[in-house]
């Protein structure tokens, strides 16, 4: 027995030695890639870091679609991806490894990464950083996000027209300004289409928690909602709606595969063309880091193909809204009151981007059960 173990031990040691010896060059100290040459035809390496597992997370899929777009449409580009990196110790390491490997552009997808990306942007001025969501930027760091209320406004109009029960369910993630802004954009659309309809809101307290999301969806359906809209990344609500025969509006990407008969449409976000522009800017040395709120005219906001359930007149209403948005229609135009009766946007005024990004109040047709009522 002892001999056997000794032999196995020796094999184990040899194996591990052989394996570690396979790769000779190991980058010891982080060095910025030589962008000094600035050959415009050079291959640009781009490293993507995802906080979730792409296949199970719709928000991550929007950035993965952008990566695939770059692969397809950009010349001399190599992309890499690492998934399932929570904010914290891991994301900085993955980004540093990318930089060691010669990546010129690092794309993050989570506001948890912002601190680390800002620090790295400072340390590596030759590397370009791009993060999906967040507000802080640097000379070599941009943030991409969209004027998401535009898409929500269109689905709000659709929902207001489609509900028979005048009770629309809305499952969202965490009540901080960005999701609240989207919910209110939706509420503006619903109010315009159907003043009698109310929006019952539940917060799953997570961006991707299928169990809780399914509970939320079932609760809303049990309360009599006949249409559920989500601002979440899992497919749980879609599946519940499909099995219980309740209309559904998806989020981030087309979720038709999970609710083939019940999905009316979905709010889709598209970053690919914008990101391709950034890559070319890096290639030409003209990149400027800034906060980029893309809108419907940038192609960032669109709706998925309508299902057969949506009648032509409703499609026309949404198409008209899309046209108005493209011509500069503002979703949060006054007068807007919150659900406590307080005037939030005066007649003739428009909510500023800053105020929209600090929204902590709900429109009157939003029934919100969040125990901790947001205060301002």
């Amino acid at each position: 027995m002892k001999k056997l173990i000794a032999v196995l031990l020796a094999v184990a040691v040899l194996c591990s030695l052989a394996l570690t010896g396979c790769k000779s060059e190991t980058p010891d100290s982080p060095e910025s890639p030589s962008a000094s040459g600035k050959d415009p035809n050079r291959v640009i390496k781009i490293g993507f870091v995802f906080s979730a597992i792409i296949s199970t997370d719709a928000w991550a899929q929007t950035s993965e679609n952008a990566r695939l777009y770059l692969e397809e449409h950009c010349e001399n580009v190599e992309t890499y991806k690492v998934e399932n990196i929570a904010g914290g110790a891991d994301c900085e390491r993955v980004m540093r490894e990318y930089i060691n490997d010669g990546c010129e552009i690092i794309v993050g997808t989570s506001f948890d990464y912002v601190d680390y990306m800002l620090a790295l942007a400072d340390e590596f001025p030759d590397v370009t950083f791009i993060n999906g969501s967040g507000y802080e930027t640097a000379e070599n760091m941009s943030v991409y996000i969209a004027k998401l209320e535009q898409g929500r406004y269109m689905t709000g109009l659709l929902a207001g027209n489609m509900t028979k029960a005048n009770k629309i369910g809305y499952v969202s993630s965490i009540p901080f300004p960005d999701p609240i802004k989207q919910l209110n954009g939706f509420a503006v659309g619903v109010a315009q289409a159907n003043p009698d309809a109310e929006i019952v809101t539940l917060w799953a307290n997570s961006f991707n928690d299928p169990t809780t999301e399914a509970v939320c969806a079932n609760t809303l359906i049990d309360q009599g909602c006949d249409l559920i809209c989500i601002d979440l990344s899992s497919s749980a609500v879609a599946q519940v709606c499909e099995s219980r025969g309740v209309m559904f509006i998806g989020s981030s990407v087309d979720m038709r595969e999970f609710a083939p008969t019940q999905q009316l449409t979905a709010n889709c976000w598209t970053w690919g063309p914008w990101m391709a522009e950034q890559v070319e800017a890096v290639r030409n040395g003209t990149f400027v880091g800034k906060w980029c709120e893309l809108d419907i005219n940038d192609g960032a906001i669109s709706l998925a193909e309508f299902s057969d359930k949506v009648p032509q007149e409703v499609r026309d209403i949404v198409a008209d809204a899309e046209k108005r948005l493209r011509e500069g229609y503002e979703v949060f135009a006054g007068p807007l009151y919150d659900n406590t009766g307080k005037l939030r946007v005066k007649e003739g005024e428009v909510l500023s981007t800053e105020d929209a990004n600090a929204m902590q109040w709900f429109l009157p047709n939003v029934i919100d059960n969040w125990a901790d009522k947001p205060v301002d």
Partner: protein
Amino acid sequence: MRKKRYFTLEKRLSIPFGIKLAVPLVSIVAGFLFSAFFLVISGESPLEVYSVMLDGAFGSAYGLSETVVKMIPLMIISVGVAFAFKMQIWNAGGEGQLHIGAAAATYVVLHLNGCSRFVTILAAFLAAFICAGIYGLIPAILKVKWKVNELITCLMLNYVATFLIAWLIQGPWKDPSGFAFPRTRKFPASGELTTLFDTRIHTGLLIGLAIAVILWFVISKTRWGYEIKLIGAKEKVARYAGVSVNRNILLVMFISAGIAGVAGMVEVCGITHRLQANFAAQIGSSGMTIAYLAQCHPLGAVLVSFLFGGLLVGGNTIQKLGLPVSTVQMIQGSILIFVAAGAMFTNYKIVRKERRLGHD
């Protein structure tokens, strides 16, 4: 008369050190071989994948430093829960205690403005230890008073703690200048642990190693440690010997939970520098696994945490080969399963026996 030869498992009377070392090593290799089969099926070269994995985790000074960064909270939390396991008290609440510790440390750091780093960190350490310890006393008191199974209450309290954090960072502790993202303010420099060797390795490493050595000393060299082991081995015997079981349950749970809380403190003070959601992903739940794999030995937990950290770091690295994350998790999972299952061979040996079958 016929004889039948067969193999059977027999408990080892004593466990030689060589076996203790060889069994996990062979198990790791077996786990790699098992995964290699699936890698080949999915068209990958196992040799390339494993070399990149090991290289990412241990092959460079940077990779090694990051493995240590990952190891620090794992080591502290696993040493903490292992201490309770020694007494057969199943502290499954490490994750919750870690969160409470992190919250307590955050509170102290954000409110002790103007103090020196030493004072701030010491206060954060004590706050994390005491608050998490008190949190760990809840299941201990329930067990002592009403014989409530601590495994269940600990697991439940994990949820309570994570939701408490969620409420804090979305509500009262939310960074007022943070664009309303759910996270606290960034710590002042005095609340950050000092980093070592120009890497992200922070002084939490020394705190963790000190805790591990102290616990090893307590368990193996002191009378109290002997009592704890006695309770773990046979509670009735301990009672007859005059050991106060209830007092020890409370004390050991307090210390075990307190140490888990320190793991949270070093992670927020050493790495994230603010309290945010997911700051301890993969740490809380791994503590128990590591404690088990290390057979509840404090110094063993240090070693296993190092390997575990490497497994996580290397796992991220191989994704850049284009491997889907599920394959990475499959490799990590199979290595863990092989090591856990292989642990049987530490305590048991295979022996060959003969049995006489009756007369024909």
